[in-house]
Structure formats: C-alpha cells, structure tokens
C-alpha cells in the first residue's frame, strides 16, 4: 500500500517531531560485549548443569501439616443495599438487582498456605531428563498439566526448539504427542495457556512473542489422542482474520475460546469461537464478546453488549442470556467459573473515578458477594470448588516495590485470606478443592522458585 499525499505529510511531521524531541541517548559498545559474554557463559553453564541436577530435582516433598482448626462457623456475609457509588450490581434479566453482600479487600487476613490447605506437594523442577517444567493447569483428578521446555529456548528473536505438554502426578510424567510439526511449516512455538475438563485438556500455542501472532489450539482427548482443534488461518474461509491471545476451554465435545477478529478488514473486537475437541471439524463463530469464556455447569459464560450482558453458550450451541450489568461506562471484565459459581472481575473508569472489584455470583441461589477494591483486571482468576482465588498487589513494607500475592475467598463463610509469602504467587489452575500455584522471584526476575499442588481444608 502506498502512502497518500496526506499520509506522506503526516509521517514526515512525525519524523520531525521525533527528531526534535528525542533526548540524548548513549550506549557503550564495550558494555554490550561484556554483557553478551556473561549471558553466553551463563547459558553454557546452565546447559551443562541441568543434566547433573536432574536426579535430585525429581524428589517430591510433602509439607508437614499444621494441626487443623475447626471449620469456621460464622454466617455468610449479611445482605445489604446495593452501592450508590457507580458500581452496578448484576440484575436478573427482568431487571431486579440480585441480593448483594460486600467485603473489602482491606479486611483480608494474612495466612500461611499451610493453614489453608490439608496437604502441599512440591512439583519437581525438571523432568527426569533435566528439562524444566512449568505448571499450566490441572485436570479433574488432580494431575498437573505441564509444559516442558528449556529456559534457553528463546534467544530474544525466536524459539529455538519445540516444547511438549504433558501431565505430572506424583507417579511421574505422561507426555502428550509431539505436535511441533503440526501444522506443517510453522516455526517453533510455545504454549501460554491450558485448561482441562474431565479427561480432556486443551491448550494454545504460538510462535509469536508479541501476543499478536496466529494461534494454534490443540487438545488431548479422553481417548489419549492429540488433535489440532483449529488454527487462526481457518478463519479465512469465514471471511475473518484472527489473531491475538486465545484461551481455550473444553465445553463438552467442543473447545471454545475468544479471538481478536477482523471481518473483511472492517470490524475489530473479540469473537467467541468453537470447534470440535477431536479436530477436523468446522470452526464456528458463536457470538461477539468482550471477554474470554469461562466454563461452568451451564456452559461457557461470556460477556457482550459492551459489558452489560452476561450470556452462556451451551454445549448444544444455543446461547442463553443470564444476567445484566447496568454499566454507564464501558468496563474491562474478566471471568472465571466452575459448577454454578461465576466470578466476574471488573475495572471501570467513570465520572467518579476508577473502580475495581470482583463479584462472586451464586447462580443457583441468585446472589452476589462483592470483594470491593479487589483486583478486577487480568485473567488470573479461579473458582476452586467452594473457594475463589486471584492475585492482589501488596506494597512491600520495606519499600522494595511490592509483590503479587494470592488471595482466597470463601463465599459461604465470608473468609478472605491472603498468602503470607512476601513473594509473587501465581495460581496456575485448580480443580474442585485442589489448586496448583507458582511462587516466583520477588524481584519479578522470572525465576520460578517453587510450584506446588495443594488441597483446601
């Protein structure tokens, strides 16, 4: 495409502005050589050390349990009037506000993970062959979905080797089929999201490091096979170009996910897609959406109409509206679900300032519990059996910049707990009352310190 005269003039003006505004910048070539040498040496040493450490790293430890205290007997939070601060309460479809209770994130009590879980099992750092593993999700029977790839897989430009997905349990590893050559012609990819339902696992891979690349969605099916569920280019037959992040979920015998979609180059936004779990089936555009889907007993929940309507895609492909949120400003929403619990993270900017919160909605009882001022942004939200879990930023009391901690809330009791770890904790997934988390370097230097599987009391 050639630039028009108008565009030429505007781009020339951009160059002029850049020339005029660029500050003095300097970089010493010798320092880049020194830094490069250190990186090169570190890579060589690490490659050599991995094999030596493999045997020791596979050891699995079970944490000593602290005596269990009696179950809390406090009643659930009392119902109260909906707030009048511009943070809408979800309504039924006929316009009635759901019964509402609220608790402030500031009331969270700090607790050691050992006080919250009956058992904590550390995952090994590597496979028996010495390749690092990374927890991604959990199956219904408590096995951990892991990706397996070297830390040196990425050189800043591209991935240098394929990675594998599989399952870990204390009994060992079970690797899924190698899909690196599917589809043919792809560069090496990595996986950034996985989820599971029943015996099925689905995950997404991309070769893009930018979050803008073309996704490939795979599934490990209950019969033990592996399928390519869909690739972004499949949208061309439907007039779409797909890209961006995808976070697939199993919905019965299909997989459902959201993708950025450009229809005939005209519209932009997320669209909800589905395709058969076993692959080689038709990719279906289900709806427009503003969220990634979250699957519970009723189907795949998603939000549309600029955040005002919560709907559910059923296994049979029908869509049912569930709730309405009377927002006056367009919100940013993220979802999590399991059973008949729907977790809605909201971040909205309005005339009264920025508001952020999390709603935990019991769809059977038709009530909502709100955690006020909780982190409504991001997709790291989980419904784990009777609990919900997410991340909150905690300032470092020593002035070191702070860290992200895991928060666990029990809607039945109103108990709100914060992990007392003073490091970044990232929950990877859960199934029923089990949860798997990663504890990261508090400097956010991307080193995984531990990954652990635990079961709520």
């Amino acid at each position: 495409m050639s630039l028009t005269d108008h565009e030429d003039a505007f781009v020339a003006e951009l160059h002029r502005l850049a020339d005029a505004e660029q500050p003095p910048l300097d970089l010493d070539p010798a320092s880049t050589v020194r830094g490069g040498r250190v990186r090169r040496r570190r890579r060589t040493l690490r490659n050599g050390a991995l094999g030596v450490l493999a045997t020791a790293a596979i050891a699995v430890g079970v944490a000593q349990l602290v005596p269990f205290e009696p179950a809390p007997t406090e009643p659930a939070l009392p119902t109260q009037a909906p707030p009048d601060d511009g943070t809408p309460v979800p309504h039924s479809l006929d316009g009635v506000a759901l019964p509402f209770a609220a608790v402030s994130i500031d009331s969270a009590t700090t607790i050691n993970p050992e006080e919250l879980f009956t058992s904590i099992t550390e995952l090994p750092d590597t496979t028996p062959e010495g390749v690092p593993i990374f927890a991604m999700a959990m199956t219904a029977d408590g096995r951990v979905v892991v990706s397996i790839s070297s830390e040196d897989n990425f050189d800043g430009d591209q991935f240098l080797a394929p990675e594998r997905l599989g399952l870990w349990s204390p009994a060992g590893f079970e690797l899924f089929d190698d899909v690196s050559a599917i589809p043919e012609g792809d560069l090496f990819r990595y996986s950034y999201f996985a989820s599971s339902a029943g015996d099925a696992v689905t995950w997404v891979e991309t070769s893009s490091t930018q979050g803008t690349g073309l996704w490939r969605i795979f599934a490990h099916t209950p019969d033990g096979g592996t399928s390519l569920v869909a690739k972004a280019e499949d949208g061309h037959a439907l007039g779409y170009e797909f890209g961006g992040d995808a976070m697939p979920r199993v919905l019965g015998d299909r997989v459902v996910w959201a993708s950025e979609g450009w229809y005939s180059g005209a519209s932009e936004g997320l669209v909800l897609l589905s395709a058969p779990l076993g692959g080689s089936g038709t990719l279906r555009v289900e709806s427009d959406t503003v969220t990634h889907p979250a699957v519970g007993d009723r189907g795949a929940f998603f939000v549309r109409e600029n955040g005002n309507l919560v709907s559910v895609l059923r296994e049979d492909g029908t869509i049912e509206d569930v709730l309405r949120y009377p927002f006056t400003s367009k919100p940013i929403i993220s979802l999590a679900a399991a059973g008949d619990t729907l977790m809605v993270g909201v971040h909205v900017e309005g005339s009264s300032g920025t508001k952020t919160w999390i709603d935990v909605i019991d769809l059977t009882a038709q009530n909502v519990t709100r955690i006020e001022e909780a982190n409504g942004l991001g997709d790291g939200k989980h419904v784990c059996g009777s609990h919900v879990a997410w991340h909150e930023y905690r300032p470092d009391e020593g002035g070191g910049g702070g860290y992200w901690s895991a928060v666990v809330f029990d809607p039945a009791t109103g108990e709100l707990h914060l992990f007392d770890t003073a490091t970044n904790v990232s929950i990877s997934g859960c199934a029923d009352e089990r949860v798997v988390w990663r504890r990261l370097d508090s400097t956010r230097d991307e080193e995984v310190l531990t990954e652990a599987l635990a079961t709520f009391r």
Partner: protein
Amino acid sequence: MAAGPASGREDTEHVLVRPVGEPMGRDREFTAFVLEHRATLLRAAWLLVGDAHRAEELAQQALERTYVAWPRARTGDPVAYARRVLVNLRTDTWRRRRREVLVEPVELVEHARAHHDPDRAGDRDRLVRALATLSERQRRIVVLRYLMDLSEAEVAADLGVSLGTVKSTASRALAELRAALGTRDGLEGASR
C-alpha cells in the same frame, strides 16, 4: 573494515590459534556493528518505551542477546535481528503470559486508560504522549512502519503477524495518532 598490513597479519595469527568467529573476531566485529547501528536501535527503543533511561537499558539488553546469537545473526541481516530482539524484549509478552509475571498495577491501569485520556501525562513530549494513546500493537507497528521506515512485509516479519494485520492496524493507528496530535495540538499542515 579497513585492514592494513599489520592487522592482516594479526588476523592470520588468530586463525592459527583459535577458530574463526571466536572471541577476538566476534568482539571486534560486534563492536563495529554496535557503533554503526546503535543510534538507530536507541531511537527505536525510545519511541517504543518513551523514556531515555529505559530505552538505553532496552537497547543494551537487546544487543547483549544479539551478541550471544552473533554467529547466526551475522549470517543474515544483523540489524533486523537486533531490532526484532529489541521489539520482542519491549513487551516480552510470551514470558509475561506464560509465567504470569505480573506487571505493576500502574502499568495495567495505564494500559486500560490509554485510549481514554491522551493528556494524562501532560508533561511528556508530544510524540511520546501521542504514541502512548495507542495500543501496544498499534504502537509497535507505527514505530516500525512509519518512524523506522520498514516495509509492511518487514514489520510483519518482525512482529510475527500477517501482512493483513499490519495493513489494517497501521491504517487505523495512524488515524488515531493523527487525531491525538492534530486535534489537540494543532499539527499545522500535516493532516491537510
């Protein structure tokens, strides 16, 4: 690189005592590369991050990684290689997504606000402020396509996206940038 009689003999001696491309040859060649292209890479980094200190840090990291991969980078287009590393490091999205290395809350909020309030950092430079109103993807594509003067195909290759994505995103992003600069700041003559 110019080489007189003395340096020619020195190179010959190096070949005799160490494999071609090992430290001395690599360092000399890489240093020459940095001297020639650092200004371009620093400018790209500054346009991407909007801050001089962070830009220097980003370019430093990108070049260190390029040094490690120099035997591969030098066989193709080493500038394109270093630029791709730089753009990748700018977001390092894959690490953040994969590890949920959670960014500072202010960064999340800034990202969410970017489209709504172009004046929120009123003391910044006009161009940086206007670029900050774009989404991450729009900003990368605008910087590479219009401010680094890469072709659409080169931008697509650098970012690992399709040509169609570059075309549609670039067009929309340029319109948004024009609106951010033109209507608020009166970019005389540029948009007429």
